Every structure is written in C-alpha cells, then in structure tokens.
C-alpha cells in the first residue's frame, strides 16, 4: 500500500473494483480490457464525479493562490530591474523543479505533508513564473500618456494602480491565467503521489490494476477539463473586458 493512497473513501472502492470482478460489463472483465468502454462511465460514475470535483477545486484554489502571490511580486518587480531579475529568476527556478519532487518536498515540516494543500501550494508556486511575467508585461504596457492623464485628474498611486493600470493590463493578465490554468490541470495529476491528484488518482489506480478504460477515460477527462477551463476564462475575459471583443 502506498502512503498516498491510504486515505480510504472512494479510492478504496476503486482499488477493489478490479476489471473482471464486475461481471455486468462486457468491455472490462477477465478476458476483455478495452480502452473504450461506455459501461465504465456509468459503473464508475461516483468515482469520476468525486475525482473531477477534486480536480476542479484544487485547480481553482491553486490558480487563485498563485495570482494572489504573483500580484504583489509583480508590483515589487516593477520597482527596480534588480528586484525584477530576482523575482523572475526565482520563479523560473521553482518552475524547474519537477512536480513529483515538488509535491514530495511538501513532506518537509512545517509544510502540510500528505494533504491536498501540499498539491495546492506546489501548483500555485508553478503558476508564478507565467503570472508574474504577464502581470509585469501587462502593467508596463500601459501607455505613459494614460498615466499622465490619470495623474492630471488627481489619481493617487494606489487609485492609479487599481482603477487604471490593472484594468488596462487585464488582457495580458488573463492570457497568463489561461496558460497557468491549463498547465495546472495537467500537472495536478501528479498530485496522485500524495493521493490528491484528482483524475490522476484514477490514472494511477488504472495503471496499477492494468485497467485501460479507467486510464483512458480519466486522461480524456483531464484534457476536456483543461479545454473547458480555458474556454471559461475566455468567457470571463469577454465579459469583463467587452471593449476587447472583435
């Protein structure tokens, strides 16, 4: 038994339901281990729903946490080229760390250890490299005349940042959020090393049990989820930035 899988619940249920034990299906049993199996979708509906939900909430929380960390870092980076180099360099180094190692390093106290929060922290750190970069680029692309006009209208530094610069940087920031979200959905599967990999948990169990229908279904759902998240963010962009349309 692997440490990360000792949390019971739906995972235990999946573990015992080996292909072959369920005789009601004709595409996964002792003799037939098909990749495509519609019966899998209905038989494993509850497992798929549980893991898809885990996948969604960990993705959303990770990207939000990443954005919350990236924004102040981007503001710091704007202050001086030295700070910018340190922030961008630091986030690039973090991005270099392989996900399996990143999640495993979360066992070091006081980090959360075997917990979904370890996956969240790791994924949030990965989003920094793209989010900080795009936030800095978006803020710096605001034309100087616009800033001057706002200052002329009596905007202070904070109001200028929140009311003028950040909204104008939004297209670039949302582009970064889309890239970060799509790669977060994919990377999250590796969280299965800690037992919190969303659909990756099903892929992991599928490989252990040589259960093809489960592996393919979970993999396809990951890609569908990534595309869906991308489209949702595209929709958000259209909604909050109507002037960008067309």
């Amino acid at each position, binding site marked *: 038994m692997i440490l990360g899988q000792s949390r019971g619940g739906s995972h235990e249920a999946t573990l015992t339901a080996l292909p072959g034990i369920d005789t009601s299906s004709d595409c996964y049993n002792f003799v037939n281990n098909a990749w495509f199996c519609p019966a899998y979708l209905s038989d494993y509906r509850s497992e798929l729903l549980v893991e898809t939900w885990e996948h969604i909430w960990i993705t959303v929380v990770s990207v939000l946490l990443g954005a919350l960390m990236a924004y102040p870092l981007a503001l710091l980076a704007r202050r001086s080229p030295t700070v910018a180099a340190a922030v961008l360099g630091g986030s690039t180094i973090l991005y270099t760390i392989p996900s399996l190692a990143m999640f495993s390093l979360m066992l070091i106290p006081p980090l959360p250890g075997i917990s979904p929060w370890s996956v969240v922290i790791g994924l949030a750190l990965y989003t920094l490299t793209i989010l900080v970069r795009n936030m800095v680029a978006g803020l710096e692309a605001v034309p100087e005349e616009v800033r001057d006009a706002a200052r002329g209208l009596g905007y202070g530094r904070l109001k200028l940042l929140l009311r003028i610069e950040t909204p104008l940087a939004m297209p670039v920031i949302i582009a970064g959020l889309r890239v970060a979200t799509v790669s977060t959905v994919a990377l999250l599967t590796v969280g299965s090393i800690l037992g919190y990999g969303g659909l990756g948990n099903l*892929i992991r169990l599928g*490989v252990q049990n040589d259960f093809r229908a489960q592996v393919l279904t979970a993999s396809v759902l990951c890609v569908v989820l990534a595309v869906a998240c991308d489209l949702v963010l595209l929709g958000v962009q259209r909604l909050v930035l109507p002037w960008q349309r067309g």
Partner: protein
Amino acid sequence: MDFAAVWDYLSDGANWSGSQGMGAYLVQQLLLTLTSVVAAAVVGLPVACWLGHIGRGGALAVNISNVGRAVPTFAVLVLLSLGPLGVGELGPYGRAGLATLVSLLLFALPPIVTNAYVGLREVDREIVDAARGMGMRGGQLFRSVELPLALPLMVTGLRLAVVQVWATATIAALVAGPGLGNVVTEGFASSNTPQVIAGALLIAAVAVVLELAMAVVEKAVAPVPADTRTGRATRPETPGGTG
C-alpha cells in the same frame, strides 16, 4: 522527520550503489533525457526551420505548444506503457524504456518546434530584405542571416525541452518505469520519509543544474547582449510546462 536523517540517506554510499541505487537511477535518467531531447531536436528542428524559413504553418508550430500544455505527461506515460509499446526492458533505459522515451520525445517537441519557429519568424524582415538585396537566396540566406539570429530562441526551446523532459522522466516511476522517481516512489512505498525527501532533493537539484547549464549556453549563443534586445526582459514567456 529531521534533516539529519535526510543527510544520512544522501551521504550513505550504499544508497548510491547497485542497480537500485541513486547512482544508477541518476545515470539512467540523464541518459533518457539526453536521448529524447537529441531525438526531438533531430526530428523537430528541421521541420521548424523549414516552416519558419518559408513562413508557413505558424498555427501548427504555435498550437503544438498549447496542446502539449493541456495533455498531462503522466497520462501519456501511462497510455503508452499500457498500450502497444508495453513495459518491456530496453537496454540501459530500463523497464518501460521505449514507452518512456517516446513520451519524453513527444513532450520535448513542442518547446523545440515553437521556439525555433518563432525565432525564425521574429528575425527582422528588413534584415532579410537587405540580405535578399545583397543577392542572398534560400539556403545562404537561412545559414548566414536567419539561423544565427534565431539561434538564441532555438536554444531557449532546447532549455525548456530539457527541463520538461527531466521532469517528465521523473514521473515514469509512477508507471513502474525507469529513473530517479523510483527513489521517491520506493520511499513512499516503505514509508521512508527521509528517502522520499532525499530523492526529491536530488531530482530538484539536478533539474536546477540542467536549467542553469542551458541558460549559460543560451547566453553564449546570443549575438547581441540580451538587455539591448527590445522587450526581452518582460516578454510574456510561455514555458514548456513542468511534467
């Protein structure tokens, strides 16, 4: 868990020796990384250079990176090893060697192709026109003008590919495949936390060394110092994605 135990694990020679030791896994994973990045460069660079030179296939060259980002490396590793490629031993590449190599190759291609293509397309059109005016044609234009100017971004692509492949190779262990990830998965299987952390530290340290080494190469091939190239410092980068 204390750091002394991690240090003890790392400094014990017995943990480095033998076919299940960190030494063998390290060599195996470096070999996997090198083989697949070289193979991806051999396959991808000519295609990307040709597309970039003739200025076609931009959507393909860029979208391959978007697709590569959305597909979990873990899923591809599993699908290939459960599929026709199987989990057979492949010489020094170990169990599931072929499935692992093919997965790594697939994930090395997007950054290599996209960056080489973008590098060639970003060569100043006025420079290309000037070279044409001087009588340069096809191959000569490519060799003496486009290639040298695109080289830094090509190396960027290789750097991203190396980082991506190293990370993906680590995950192969989750599929009972080769590489250093085995140190981590074996540590989890035996509830040996110091081993998990020691393995993770080693994997992360080599990743950072590879990244820094490739960054040095990147600097070395830049024809113009990076800070004088417009917009380089803050240009939104689209990384290859950690596996």
